[in-house]
């Protein structure tokens, strides 16, 4: 194998692919805009839902309760000062009104409510709503809270009349205290999403390059002339292999860049609840950072080896695309399976399992509880998998019945 020939092939392939719009879109553009667009849309959708739940809560009265007194009672006492709750009138049956969206809630208030309040007896208020409606289910708590707050004000009033402190209602008080660790809580979303997305992106990022570099060459009839040039097969393979690895890693870098841009533009977008994970929230020791980068590169190399092997085996571009699409599952299954996993849930054995080792290493580093031993296990096992996949694709690349399959 000649390093010079390898470099010539690598340089040509990188230039060639950099001019391919399809490769640029899938390896660079999509990873770059994926995070901001995905989370931007999710965030917009959730913001709108939140606004709909919090604001413009329409409440109607059941026909039996629709009197001036009840309306006045609700408007000027129960819902007083609550701008988001609006009393509306309905001209149809309450169930129908809810179904048609004329009102989110229909309230029925006991006719003798004034008398019950005066005699310190409970006033029955029933709330009719559709609990399968996301907005109604979300805002029922707001209506409930308004009614409960009014009830509480009556209790306070009555206790004051009797000269009793309201403390009597709270014999025990519970105070919650959380361990102060802003970094962990702030990075929770990143911790969940980043290892998953990164793994999938590495698996996907090299596919256009791998498909093009062998199966594509076979289909375009450029492969045989290439095989008749001076370099040995291994020089050609390794030049192509480095190109596929490069494009896998370009995808990851583009993904990080997209995420960083997203955080800079909208610091809360990745948390999806408005709390900022912040770029300053990360504090990773240099050694661990280097290890995790090496592990990520190694994962890219493992996928590059597999992708080239599949591309070598395939007779055409289409055949390679079909086989390579199955390879995405190899990344997706462990990525989704561990998505909700927290760093403290990681087990040592995971750092030796292919693909899972990179996910575990990234989760651990992002979570802050770093074990250098586990990182080294992940790196060492990754290197073994790189060698295995390389040997596999090299053997395939040497086989005449694979290269000239027809």
């Amino acid at each position, binding site marked *: 194998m000649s390093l010079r020939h390898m470099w*010539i092939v690598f340089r040509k392939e990188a*230039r060639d692919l950099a*001019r391919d719009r399809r490769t640029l879109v899938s390896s660079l553009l999509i990873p770059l805009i994926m995070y901001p667009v995905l989370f931007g849309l999710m965030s917009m959708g959730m913001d709108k839902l939140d606004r709909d739940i919090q604001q413009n809560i329409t409440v109607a009265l059941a026909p039996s309760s629709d009197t001036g007194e009840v309306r006045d009672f609700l408007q000027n006492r129960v819902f007083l000062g609550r701008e988001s709750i609006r009393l509306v009138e309905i001209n149809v049956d309450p169930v129908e009104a809810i179904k048609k969206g004329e009102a989110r809630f229909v309230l029925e208030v006991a006719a003798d409510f004034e008398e019950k309040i005066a005699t310190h007896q409970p006033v029955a208020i029933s709330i009719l709503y559709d609990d399968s409606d996301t907005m109604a289910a979300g805002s029922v708590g707001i209506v409930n809270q308004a009614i409960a707050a009014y009830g509480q004000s009556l209790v306070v009033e009555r206790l004051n009349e009797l000269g009793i402190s309201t403390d009597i209602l709270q014999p025990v008080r519970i105070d919650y205290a959380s361990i102060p660790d802003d970094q962990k809580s702030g990075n929770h979303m990143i911790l969940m999403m980043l290892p998953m997305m990164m793994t999938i992106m590495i698996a996907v990022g090299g596919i256009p390059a791998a498909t093009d570099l062998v199966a594509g060459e076979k289909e375009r*009839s450029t492969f045989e*002339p290439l095989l*008749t040039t*001076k370099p*040995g097969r291994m020089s050609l393979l390794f030049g192509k292999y480095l190109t596929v690895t490069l494009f896998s890693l370009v995808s990851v870098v583009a993904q990080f860049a997209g995420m960083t841009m997203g955080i800079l533009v909208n610091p809360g977008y990745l948390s999806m609840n408005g709390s900022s994970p912040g770029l300053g929230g990360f504090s990773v020791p240099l050694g661990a950072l280097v290890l995790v980068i090496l592990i990520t590169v190694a994962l890219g190399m493992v996928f590059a080896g597999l992708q080239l092997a599949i591309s070598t085996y395939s007779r055409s571009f289409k055949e390679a695309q079909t086989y390579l699409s199955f390879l995405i599952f190899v990344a997706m299954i462990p990525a989704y399976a561990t998505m909700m996993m927290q760093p403290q849930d990681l087990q040592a054995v995971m750092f030796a399992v292919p693909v899972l080792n990179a996910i575990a290493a990234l989760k651990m580093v992002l979570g802050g509880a770093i074990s250098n031993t586990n990182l080294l296990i992940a790196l060492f096992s990754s290197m073994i998998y790189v060698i295995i996949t390389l040997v596999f694709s090299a053997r395939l690349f040497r086989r*005449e019945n694979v290269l*000239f399959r027809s």
Partner: protein
Amino acid sequence: MLKLEGLTKSFGDIVAVDGVSFSVQEGEIFGLLGENGAGKTTTLRMLATMLKPTSGTAKLGKYDVVADPEQVRGSIGILFGGETGLYDRLTVAENIRYFGELNDMPSADIKRRTDQLSAAFGMQDYIHRRAGKLSKGMKQKAAFARSIIHDPGIMLFDEPTSGLDVGAMREVHAFILQCKAEGKTIVLSSHIMNEVEKLCDRIGIIHQGRLVDVGSIGELRAKYGGDSLEEIFVKLAEVVR
């Protein structure tokens, strides 16, 4: 000089090329004539070291296809029929340069030879245009230039006019004759009788993997009778069956 001795290639139980022997001198065009599937491409693939012979040897110049595959590849130029095999996203110059670099040519030599070939084939107007944007004729000239950028002593042509129109076919023929004039050793595989008759000094007729006879047109005519190569080929096939 090119010499094959008992060259054989089997794929499992199927013997694609069976003990083929012939030699070609410098400045000679040797035609490998046979039907589709006769073993012509497999023979050329072994000569280009893409396939390893199951048995037998082939020497291209002083290099053996099994012992010195890299040197063999460095001393041959090859042109396939059908698609030109150019990289569409690279310019003509980049395509030529890539093959020059792969064949270990110094950068200055690649530049000099590209300019020379560009002038010879009239490619100056489109040498820096991407191959994918060119007409079939332009691509063909670029493919010619690429195949001889390293000035190989031996040229292999595998069905070079397959799928081409008359004009393009004439261009290929002219190129082959130009290579002959430059003293290159040439093997041309084809199933087109007229083409072989027109271009080749000697012909080897290959049938079901075996070289059934070798000779000049005159020799074959004297031996089997008949006016055209087509008639000779049909008679020979009958003899073999």
